[in-house]
C-alpha cells in the first residue's frame, strides 16, 4: 500500500492548501521567467522579423533601439548606390501619446517604407497592409484600436486598415505602423507657438550651426534598413558606408546584442535575480512543509520502525509525499498560469523548455526537502512509539 497517498487522502483539504501554496510560488517563478521571455521577445520582435541584414544609423550612435538616431531623409538613395546592396527601406520608431474615444492612449509609431516595404514580415490578424496612400495605419490589438477606427495623430486623421497581435515594443506599448512620410509628419508635429519662436530665433535666415545637425535632424528617419545581395560581402558593404563618416552601420546581430546586453541588461538581471530568490524561497518553504510533516508523523515513523519496516519504507513515505506536493503544486501552477497570465498587461511567455527547467528545479527542491525530512526521520527511534 502507498502510505504517502493514504496519508494525503486522509487530509485532502490540508494537502490541497499546501499544494496551492507551493503552486503560487511556482507560478511566481513561471511568471517571472515568462515576463523575462516576453520582454526579450517583444524587444526583439522588429529586429527579428523585419528582414534586414544591415542597419544604417546616425554616426557614432547605436541605432534607434538604443538611443536617438536620425539620418538624412535621402540617406536611402545614397545607400542604394553601394555595391552589394539589394534593397533599402527607411525606418523610424517613436512613442506617441494620443487621444481616442475620450481616453489617452500610448502607441509606438513605427514608420515603414511603403510601398517598398510590402509588410510580408508582419503577420496580420485582420484587415490588410498599408496600401501606400497616406493616412493609413496598421495597429496592434493591444492599442485597443479596431479596423475602421479613425485616429487623430498630429493634425491628421488616420484610418486603421489592419490589425496585428502581440506586436509591441520593449516597453510593452503596442506598435502602430504608418507610412514613413506619415511618421515623419507625426514626429515633427509642433504647436504654432513653437514654430513662431523657431522663426524668431533664426530671424528668418537659414542658419547652419554646429548644433543644427549635419545629418538633417528634421528628417526624423531613424535608420535605413539594408538587404544585401546574396553574393555580397557584408564587411565590404559596411566599410564602404562607414567611410562616409556620418553614419554607423550595424548588423542585425549587433542590434540584438545592444538590445539585450545594453538596453535590457539591468531589467534582465533584476528579473533573473527575483526568479532565483523565489526559487530559494520555494526551496525553504517546501523544505519546511516536508520537515513539519515528518515531525508530525514521528510517531507513525517510530511505529514503522518498531514493527520492522525497512528504512526504504520510511524514505518512500517522506519522499513520495514531497513528490506529491511538488507534482500537485506544479500542475496547479501551470493551470493557474494559463488562466491568469493572459490577463496581465505584459506578455508572459511560457516556453516548454522553461517549464521543463522549472519542473527540474522544483524536483531538485522537493528532493532536497525530502532529504531534510528523511534525515530527521532517520533520527527517530522505534522506542519513540512509547513516548
Amino acid at each position, binding site marked *: 500500500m502507498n*502510505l504517502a497517498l493514504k496519508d494525503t487522502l486522509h487530509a485532502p483539504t490540508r494537502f490541497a492548501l499546501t499544494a496551492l501554496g507551493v503552486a503560487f510560488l511556482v507560478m511566481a517563478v513561471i511568471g517571472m521567467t515568462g515576463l523575462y521571455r516576453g520582454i526579450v521577445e517583444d524587444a526583439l520582435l522588429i529586429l527579428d522579423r523585419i528582414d534586414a541584414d544591415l542597419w544604417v544609423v546616425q554616426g557614432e550612435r547605436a541605432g534607434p533601439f538604443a538611443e536617438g538616431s536620425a539620418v538624412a531623409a535621402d540617406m536611402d538613395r545614397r545607400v542604394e548606390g553601394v555595391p552589394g546592396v539589394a534593397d533599402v527601406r527607411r525606418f523610424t520608431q517613436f512613442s506617441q501619446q494620443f487621444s481616442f474615444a475620450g481616453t489617452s492612449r500610448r502607441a509606438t509609431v513605427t514608420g515603414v517604407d511603403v510601398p517598398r516595404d510590402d509588410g510580408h514580415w508582419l503577420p496580420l490578424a485582420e484587415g490588410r497592409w498599408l496600401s501606400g496612400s497616406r493616412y493609413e495605419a496598421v495597429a496592434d490589438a493591444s492599442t485597443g484600436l479596431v479596423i475602421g477606427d479613425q485616429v487623430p495623430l498630429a493634425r491628421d486623421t488616420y484610418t486603421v486598415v489592419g490589425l496585428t497581435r502581440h506586436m509591441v515594443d520593449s516597453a510593452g506599448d503596442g506598435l502602430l505602423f504608418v507610412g514613413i512620410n506619415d511618421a515623419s509628419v507625426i514626429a515633427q508635429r509642433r504647436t504654432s507657438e513653437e514654430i513662431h519662436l523657431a522663426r524668431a530665433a533664426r530671424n528668418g535666415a537659414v542658419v547652419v550651426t554646429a548644433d543644427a545637425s549635419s545629418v538633417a535632424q528634421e528628417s526624423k528617419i531613424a535608420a535605413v534598413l539594408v538587404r544585401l545581395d546574396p553574393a555580397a560581402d557584408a564587411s565590404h558593404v559596411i566599410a564602404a558606408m562607414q567611410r562616409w563618416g556620418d553614419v554607423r552601420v550595424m548588423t542585425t546581430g549587433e542590434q540584438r546584442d545592444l538590445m539585450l546586453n545594453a538596453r535590457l541588461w539591468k531589467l534582465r538581471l533584476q528579473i533573473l535575480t527575483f526568479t532565483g530568490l523565489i526559487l530559494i524561497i520555494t526551496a525553504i518553504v517546501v523544505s519546511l512543509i516536508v520537515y513539519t510533516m515528518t515531525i508530525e508523523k514521528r510517531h507513525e515513523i517510530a511505529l*514503522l520502525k518498531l*514493527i*520492522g519496516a525497512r528504512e526504504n519504507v520510511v524514505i518512500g513515505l517522506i519522499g513520495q509525499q514531497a513528490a506529491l506536493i511538488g507534482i500537485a503544486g506544479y500542475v496547479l501552477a501551470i493551470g493557474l498560469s494559463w488562466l491568469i497570465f493572459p490577463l496581465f498587461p505584459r506578455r508572459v511567455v511560457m516556453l516548454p523548455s522553461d517549464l521543463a527547467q522549472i519542473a527540474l528545479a522544483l524536483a531538485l527542491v522537493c528532493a532536497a526537502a525530502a532529504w531534510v525530512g528523511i534525515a530527521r526521520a532517520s533520527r527517530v527511534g*522505534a*522506542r519513540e512509539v512509547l513516548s
Partner: protein
Amino acid sequence: MSGAPVLSVRELSRHYATGAGMVRALDGVSLDVAAGELVGIFGPSGSGKSTFLMLAGLLENPTSGEVWLAGERVSHAGADLDALRETRRRRIGFVFQKANLIPFLSAVENVALSLEIADVSPADARAHGRRLLAALDLAHRADHLPAKLSGGEQQRVAVARALANTPPLILADEPTAALDSVRGRQVMEIFRRIAGTRGAAVLVITHDPRSTDLFDRIVHFEDGRMRAKKTD
C-alpha cells in the same frame, strides 16, 4: 515451563548515568519464556518492567547481558539496533497500552501493513488481515479508521497487527491499562488463546491484578531486579 525457550535473557542490566549518579533501571535479570507460555510481569512503577521489555524487544541495548531468541544471541551491549529491525519484523509482535494504530489506515490496512513490509503481496496481506480481525470479532470494523473504533476495538486491532507475521514472541506493555475491566479481560483472554492455540510465547507487563488467573507464570520486578517467580 514446557518446550525450548523462545526468549531467553541472561544477566540483563541497563544502567543510566544521571546528574544524581548511576540509575540501575535493570540489574542482572535472567528469564526464559517458552513457546505457548503466557508470562505476566508485575511490579510497581520504576521497577524496571518497561526497561526489560525495551531490551527484550530489541528496542534498546543492554549495558550488559544478552538476549537470545530461539537459541540465537540477538542482542548484547554492542548490538546494532538498526540491524535488529529484521529480527523484530520476523520474530516479535508488540502491543502497548496505547494501540498506536496509524490514523490514516483502516483497521485491516493497519494489520496488513505488518505483512506488506515483510514482502507479502498486498492482496494476500489484506486477506490475512481480514481473517485475523475476524478471529478477534472485528470483521465488521475492518474498513473503519482507528478514530471510528472504540478503545477496546483499537487494542484488538493492535493485537491482530502483532500477530500478523505469526511471530514466536509477543511482548505486551500494559495492554489493558486503557480499557475497562470487561474489555481488559477480553484482551487478556485473547493473549491466553494466542499462547494456547498458536504456540507463541507471550510476555505481558501489567499492573492489572484481575487477570492473574490467565497467566502460566507471574514474575515480579522491584528496583530493577526480579524478585520472585510464581506459578499458579
